[in-house]
């Protein structure tokens, strides 16, 4: 077991009908196992990103708990949680996530540098080669296309060899070829290194790489099934 969420929900204050709050995510219990790729799909606004943020320690749930290998994420103080995030969790967020003042390689090595870990230069080089961003290692993010920035963010997450990798719409800016390149990299990472990968996506093509598929709507998981 890599990640376990128990009755996690997220409520925001907003006038909605008679109530002055609404649930972005209604209570959900979920387990993501090591060695598998879990794919979460659903319509826009269904609560996918909020769920991913809560699972990855980026957003405190209103209720419920999240464990990663026995550690209750939100009972940790900020320093311990940040350290855990840097050392054991990889996140590929939606949109741009590059630090503009650093080069591509510096961006990729940043998590290890912040945690004081040895810099994973070899792993970074291998993933950069595999995802086609090796020639851009010394470029600054401003010189990169949307797709290149995306792949850089994915390499950054993978190069740290996290126990669990969360990716939010990782193929949003990519063409079909690069989409398959990224998704197969996720699958190989999960299967070969026995790590957990959790992908939030709209892409139907992602489903063929999934070991577990979740569908979400209205803040709830409406189905979970292994692919046929």
């Amino acid at each position, binding site marked *: 077991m890599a990640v376990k969420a128990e009755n996690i929900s997220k409520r925001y204050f907003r006038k909605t009908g008679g109530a002055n709050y609404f649930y972005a995510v209604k209570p959900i219990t979920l387990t993501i196992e090591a060695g598998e790729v879990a794919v979460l799909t659903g319509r826009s606004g269904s609560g996918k990103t909020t769920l991913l943020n809560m699972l990855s320690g980026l*957003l405190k749930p209103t209720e419920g708990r999240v464990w990663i290998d026995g550690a209750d994420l939100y009972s940790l103080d900020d320093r311990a949680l940040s350290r855990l995030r840097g050392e054991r969790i990889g996140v590929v967020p939606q949109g741009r996530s590059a630090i503009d003042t650093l080069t591509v390689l510096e961006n990729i090595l940043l998590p290890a540098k912040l945690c004081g870990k040895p810099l994973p230069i070899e792993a970074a080089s291998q993933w950069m080669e595999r995802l086609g961003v090796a020639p851009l290692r010394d470029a600054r993010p401003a010189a990169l296309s949307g797709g290149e920035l995306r792949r850089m963010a994915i390499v950054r997450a993978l190069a740290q060899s996290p126990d669990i990798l969360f990716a939010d719409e990782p193929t949003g800016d990519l063409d079909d070829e690069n989409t398959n390149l990224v998704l197969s990299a996720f699958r190989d990472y999960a299967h070969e290194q026995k790590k957990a990968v959790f992908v939030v996506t709209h892409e139907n093509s992602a489903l063929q790489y999934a070991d577990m598929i979740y569908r979400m709507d209205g803040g709830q998981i409406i189905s979970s099934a292994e692919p046929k």
Partner: protein
Amino acid sequence: MTMKHFSLSLKNLIRKPGRTGTLALLTAFLALAVFGGSVVVLSLRSGLNSLEARLGADIILVPSEAQSKVSFQNMFLQGTTGAFYMDASALDKALEVEGVEKAAPQTFLASLKADCCSIKIQVIGIDPELDFTVQPWIARSLTRELGDMDVAVGCKVEADVGEIIRIYEQRCKVVARLEATGTGLDTAVYCNMDTMNALLAAAEEKGVSHKIESGDSVISAVYVKVKDGCDIDAVNNRLNGHIRKVTAVRTRSMITGVSDSLAGVSRTVTILIVSVWALAFFILLLAFVLIIRERAREFAVLRLVGASRGMLGRMVLLESALCGLLGGLMGVGLAALLLFPFAQLIESALKLPYLMPDAGRVLLLAAGTVLLAVTVAALSSVIAAYRLSRIDPGTALREGN
């Protein structure tokens, strides 16, 4: 704060030169006002202290016609040349007055801007046996007494030690260059009474008359030191009553005028410094809040790759402190470029004694200003850093999209 955070902050500053430059410029503005203003006020205070020390007497007796005090003051404050004379017996009469401890004469002569004189200057004759005001000053640059036809020159007189200067065709040897006082005395030349008598005679030959009705033996002023415990005003009144055609002026009344002007300038400069300080602080505060808002996504990314709230807060403080350091150094440097080469111009514009503080004090002031700039810059980013540390990275990432 470890080296890795320092290098990240440094990269952020170096690779965003526009942002760094703007913040540094704002701080430089603050440092310029604080350092520049402080140096001006300190120079004026040093000038006043120096004037007080150089006057060194409680009362000065001058001929009644010289009592148009403004011109008399200008000789000390701005180095205006001029002369007035009275009978030398005024010295003995002053010594007769109850409460007078010491009295020393001085004789003034203005050289001409003509062939007979190398430079136009104020020549002041002193009696080495009686003088108690100028000699201690001369003694700092000359270990012996002034000999005949020897002169000691103020620091602004264009003549070097060993050089011969001509005053009414008389050859005088420069034997000492005096320390700066920041007053009009820096433009004067000092000699003993024998030399002064020779110069007066030579001036007479050139048609510059110093004759007075009562006789040939003349002096220009008598510096009076009042006995300890005696009421200076009472002695001043007694001198005025005892000696005819002579006016006794309390040196404090001369200094009071300067002191009042100095207080006015100091007040203006202080108001200026405080206003610039408040304005710069407010603008920096605003700038940091806006910059942090603009960088919200960048900070959220740092959080998701393992940076803690404290780490981010320290990074923001470090970056702003470094901007403050850069701006402080720029401001101090710019102020030094404006103040030191143009000290003379500032002095003439202010028309007040102006004596630059020594290098040690200037360096201390510069270091204090830079420290202040660093502190102000860091303080103004505290609110932004605090707000930043309260935001969930998940929320910040979403807002930044």
